[in-house]
C-alpha cells in the first residue's frame, strides 16, 4: 500500500481474508487495526458516491465494488492512489484539477427559460435525449481520468469525464450555452486530443462510453467550424 505523498513508498501489511471482502474492506481494516494514520477517502461503500477510487494492482477501480477474490494475485494486492492526479497523502489524490476541468469544459447547464415559462418538453426517444442518457449517469469518480494515456502525456487535456459531461449538455435541447461549450472543448487540450485508446470506456464502473461522447464532440465541433460558428 502506498504511504506518503509524491515522495512516498509502498508499505507491506498482512490482513485477514473474509468471504465477499472488498478492497475497501482491506483498506479500512488496515486503518482501524494496523495503522490509524492511514489516509484514504470513501463515503457510501455501495458504488454511489464515487469517492473511493484507487489504483488496485495497477488498474483504477472503485475499491468498494471490487472483491478481493477478483483482483488479488497470489493473495497480494498493491493499492495506490489514483494516477494522473497529485497525491495529497497515502491513498488520497487531489481531485482539484479533475473538477476544474469540468468547469473549463463548460460542464454547467445554461438555461434560457425563467420560472415563469412552461416546462420544456424533451421526447424521451429523441436521438439527442438518448445520447444524453448514455452519458448522464457519471458520478465523477475519476477512474477514466486516471486511466487515460492522453491525460498522462498532455496535462492540459480536459479528460474523458469533463468531455463526456460537455457532450451530455451539447445533446440537451434546453441548453443555451452550446457555442461557448463547443469552443471550450475544441483543440489540443480538448476533444481533438483523444486518440481513441478507449481505456476510459473499458474502465468506467458505470459502463459509460466517454470515447463515444468525445467522438460526438469531434463531429459537432468540426461541423461548427465548417459553418463558421466556432
Amino acid at each position, binding site marked *: 500500500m502506498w504511504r506518503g505523498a509524491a515522495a512516498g513508498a509502498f508499505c507491506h501489511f498482512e490482513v485477514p481474508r473474509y468471504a465477499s471482502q472488498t478492497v475497501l474492506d482491506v483498506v479500512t481494516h488496515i486503518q482501524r487495526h494496523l495503522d490509524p494514520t492511514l489516509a484514504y477517502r470513501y463515503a457510501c461503500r455501495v458504488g454511489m458516491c464515487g469517492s473511493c477510487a484507487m489504483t488496485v494492482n495497477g488498474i483504477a477501480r472503485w475499491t468498494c465494488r471490487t472483491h478481493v477474490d477478483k483482483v488479488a494475485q497470489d493473495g497480494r494486492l498493491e493499492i495506490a492512489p489514483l494516477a494522473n492526479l497529485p497525491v495529497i497523502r497515502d491513498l488520497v489524490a487531489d481531485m482539484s484539477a479533475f473538477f476544474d476541468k469540468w468547469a473549463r469544459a463548460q460542464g454547467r447547464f445554461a438555461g434560457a427559460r425563467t420560472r415563469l415559462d412552461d416546462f420544456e418538453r424533451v421526447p424521451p426517444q429523441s436521438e439527442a435525449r438518448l445520447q444524453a442518457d448514455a452519458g448522464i449517469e457519471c458520478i465523477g469518480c475519476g477512474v477514466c481520468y486516471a486511466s487515460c494515456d492522453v491525460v498522462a502525456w498532455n496535462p492540459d487535456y480536459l479528460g474523458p469525464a469533463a468531455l463526456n459531461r460537455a457532450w451530455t449538455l451539447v445533446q440537451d435541447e434546453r441548453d443555451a450555452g452550446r457555442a461557448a461549450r463547443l469552443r471550450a472543448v*475544441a*483543440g489540443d487540450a480538448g476533444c481533438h486530443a483523444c486518440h481513441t485508446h478507449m481505456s476510459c470506456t473499458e474502465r468506467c464502473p458505470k459502463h459509460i462510453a466517454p470515447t463515444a461522447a468525445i467522438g460526438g464532440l469531434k463531429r459537432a465541433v*468540426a461541423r461548427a467550424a465548417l459553418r463558421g460558428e466556432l
Partner: protein
Amino acid sequence: MNSRARGETWLWIAQRASAAVLAVCVVVHLGTVIYAVRGGLTAAEILGRTRGSLGWLAFYALFVLAAAVHAPIGLRSVLAEWLGWRGPSRDAALLAFAVLLAALGMRAVLAVFA
C-alpha cells in the same frame, strides 16, 4: 483562445480529410503496383505510363499533397506527447517539414511526367 481552438479544429479537419484522400490513393497506388509488376518491372514501362499523362500527374500530385498535409499534423501530437515540444517553434519546424515533403514529392511527380 477562440482562434487557437478554431485553428486546432481546422488542423483536425485537414488531417481527417487528407486521411480520406490517402486511403483511396494508397489503394489505387498498390493496385497499380501489383498490376504493373506482372511481367517484370522496368523504368521504361513506368515512364511509358506516366510520361505526358495528365491523369497520373493529377493523381500523384494529389497523393503527395495529401501526405504533406497529413504527416506533419500527426507528428505534431507525437512531438507534444512524447517529447513535450509544443508552441510556435514546433509548428514552424512542422511547416518546414510539410514544405519539404511537398517539394520532394512534387519533384518526383514532375520527373516521371515530363
